[in-house]
């Protein structure tokens, strides 16, 4: 149940028939991993905490740097040099003390993904490279947990929701293991990250309240340059090294 303070805090979203008291209680019971606390994670974690998600597991290996602050709006100038996980925990607790925030300053890879995931039931991917996403995707497929991919580059971004067993996984779309070396970080613009991460937060809330995610098996592309959204259906890849051929 909700306290009177919580009922008031969430009253505007509880007016939605898809949420109501029942949905809000489900959101409060939700345990969500936000992997990465940069441009995407700043926004996704902020909206999820504000919406009343009961527990957020925040994982990032980096510290706040000056060049992050054009888009990573969970962090501020005074946070430069601090672990992003610590800075994020502080802000989210100020925003919503009902949200339990577990912040971990760590790298995500095949060895650590499972332990970091713990008993979270949804993975919000706010990482910044394919290899980390593939590690999270393998954990997602193994534990049959929804994986909500988001990525940005310059004016553009893309997002898709992968529901293991019911559609493609991240590696159906991006199967290569080839390590892209020598890549410099892409240009990034704050509002593009905001759009993509807001959609990821929406999909997460949909899943928590029991509404079907609308981007399952669909890659949504957003262009800040043309101001167009395109969506592309993605099937399960029969040759997928993670979910298709059952080799994982």
């Amino acid at each position: 149940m909700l306290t009177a303070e919580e009922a008031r805090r969430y009253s505007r979203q509880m007016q939605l028939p898809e949420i109501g008291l029942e949905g809000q209680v489900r959101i409060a019971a939700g345990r969500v991993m936000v992997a990465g606390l940069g441009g995407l994670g700043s926004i996704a974690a902020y909206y999820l905490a504000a919406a009343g998600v009961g527990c957020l597991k925040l994982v990032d290996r980096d510290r706040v740097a000056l060049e992050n602050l054009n888009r990573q709006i969970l962090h501020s100038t005074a946070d430069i040099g601090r672990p992003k996980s610590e800075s994020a925990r502080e802000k989210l607790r100020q925003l919503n003390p009902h949200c339990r925030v577990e912040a971990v300053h760590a790298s995500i890879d095949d060895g650590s993904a499972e332990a970091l995931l713990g008993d979270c039931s949804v993975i919000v991917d706010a990482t910044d490279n394919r290899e980390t996403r593939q590690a999270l995707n393998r954990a997602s497929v193994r534990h049959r947990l929804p994986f909500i991919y988001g990525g940005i580059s310059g004016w553009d971004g893309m997002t898709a929701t992968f529901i293991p067993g019911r559609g493609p996984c991240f590696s159906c779309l991006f199967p290569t293991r080839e390590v892209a070396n020598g890549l410099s970080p892409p240009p990034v613009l704050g509002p593009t990250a905001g759009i993509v991460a807001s959609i990821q937060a929406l999909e997460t809330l949909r899943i928590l309240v029991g509404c079907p995610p609308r981007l399952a098996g669909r890659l949504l592309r957003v262009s800040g340059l043309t101001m167009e959204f395109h969506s592309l259906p993605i099937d399960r890849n029969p040759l997928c090294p993670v979910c298709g051929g059952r080799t994982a």
Partner: protein
Amino acid sequence: MSDRIRIVVNGMPEEVPPSATLTDLIGLFGEMDPDLIVELNGRFVFAQDYAATRVAPNDRVEFIHPNFGG
């Protein structure tokens, strides 16, 4: 008979050999990204099908570069 067909690549009209496969087009347009996404007439094509997929006149091909920043 023309030895080229007209297709649309990333929104631009292009002329390509009539039996070109997606693998040919990737080479022709210099797409080097190992994570390239290929859309043909609004449908996603798996990488394993590039070599066997031939384009036809008026096909629309999109080469999409993944966004992996965060």
